[in-house]
């Protein structure tokens, strides 16, 4: 067979075989990964916002996995954002009854361990507490610029979504 045909054909066949193997591996582990993520989410909710009854709202909003309401009337937004890795930050952002940020919990973060540790420090996260409107102003972190930007973007997304859908969220 001519080399100009054989080379791309072999690459295509190998890529297809690897895709098949990955689909099989995904089918085997998808349920376990979903269970693990659900357990981590529940644990993070309890750790960050205390023991309460959490109920997911039925409405779906763009860019947000789910909105959860607790028994105190707080809304907790389950979002992913992009730091150094696309969609690598899984965050829970809580808004109180006034629509101000009352807590941020990092469920998982796929950036490097050092960058992950830097953006989880209270000194960084506390600047977002009490914020009610989306803004571009925030204190970034040297050495974890994109990780910090990811969290800032997520907070802005949550506040914008809340402002747009306030009625449906609070009375829905």
């Amino acid at each position, binding site marked *: 067979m001519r*080399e100009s045909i054989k080379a791309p054909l072999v690459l295509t066949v190998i890529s297809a075989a690897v895709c098949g193997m*990955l689909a099989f591996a995904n089918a085997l582990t998808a349920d376990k990964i979903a269970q693990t993520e659900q357990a981590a989410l529940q644990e993070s909710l309890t750790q960050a916002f205390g023991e309460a009854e959490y109920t997911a709202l039925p409405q779906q909003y763009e860019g947000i996995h789910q909105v959860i309401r607790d028994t105190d009337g707080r809304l907790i937004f389950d979002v992913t954002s992009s730091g150094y890795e696309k969609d690598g930050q899984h965050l829970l952002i809580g808004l109180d009854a006034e629509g101000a940020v009352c807590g941020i919990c990092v469920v998982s973060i796929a950036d490097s361990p050092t960058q992950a540790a830097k953006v989880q420090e209270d000194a960084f996260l506390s600047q977002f507490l009490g914020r009610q409107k989306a803004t571009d102003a925030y204190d970034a972190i040297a050495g974890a610029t994109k990780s910090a930007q990811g969290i800032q973007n997520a907070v802005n997304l949550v506040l914008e979504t809340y402002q747009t859908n306030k009625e449906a969220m609070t009375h829905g």
Partner: protein
Amino acid sequence: MADAETSCSLRQELCKGLIRENPTLVGLLGMCPTLAVTQEAKNALGMGIATTLVLIGSNVVISLLRRVIPQAVKLPCYIVIIAGFVTMVEFLLHGFVPELYTALGTFLSLITVNCIILGRAELFACKHTVIRSALDGAGMGLGFTLALLLVGSVRELFGAGTLFGISVMEQNAVSVLTLAPGGFFVLGCVIALVNRIAHREPPRTAGCTGCPNAATCAASKGGCSQ
């Protein structure tokens, strides 16, 4: 006699990566994960095991396909195969060891571009049988794990005063060892120690002398000069 020679040679394939041709401490490959994930011995061990699994898998598959893969698309094929194994390891860690998956973060995906894996595929697996390639992958992976574990244990023990998370001497910890400069310092000391054990002298002349890959390289196409 031939069987004994073969078995001895197979054992050599497995053992060469531990000290004599250790990819990290002698070949100085895979420095990025070596420095980045060795703040804790547990993470170092996890990264070592994950890389070993990928090394064995990719070496076996590349060796199986060595007569099929055309020269022109050799590297893209290797990368696709390696990336496939890395993603499978990611799935497994995410589902069954989520703490380690979180701790290794983006460095887990970066195993794909670890030069030890591509290096063994290019230098060894594409020229040798499946069994030899599997043993080479296992040996190199164990050598990498050993190096990471050594560096990680020293950094965690003297930098944080703990070992595998168990408090040992927290009062006397030197926290700079858990930071990047401490990583370079500990890695340098471990390399010096291994050189001492292996009685390696620095090369006195430039060229293949003293190069750990000289034998493999010369056997393939007459040396790195070609």
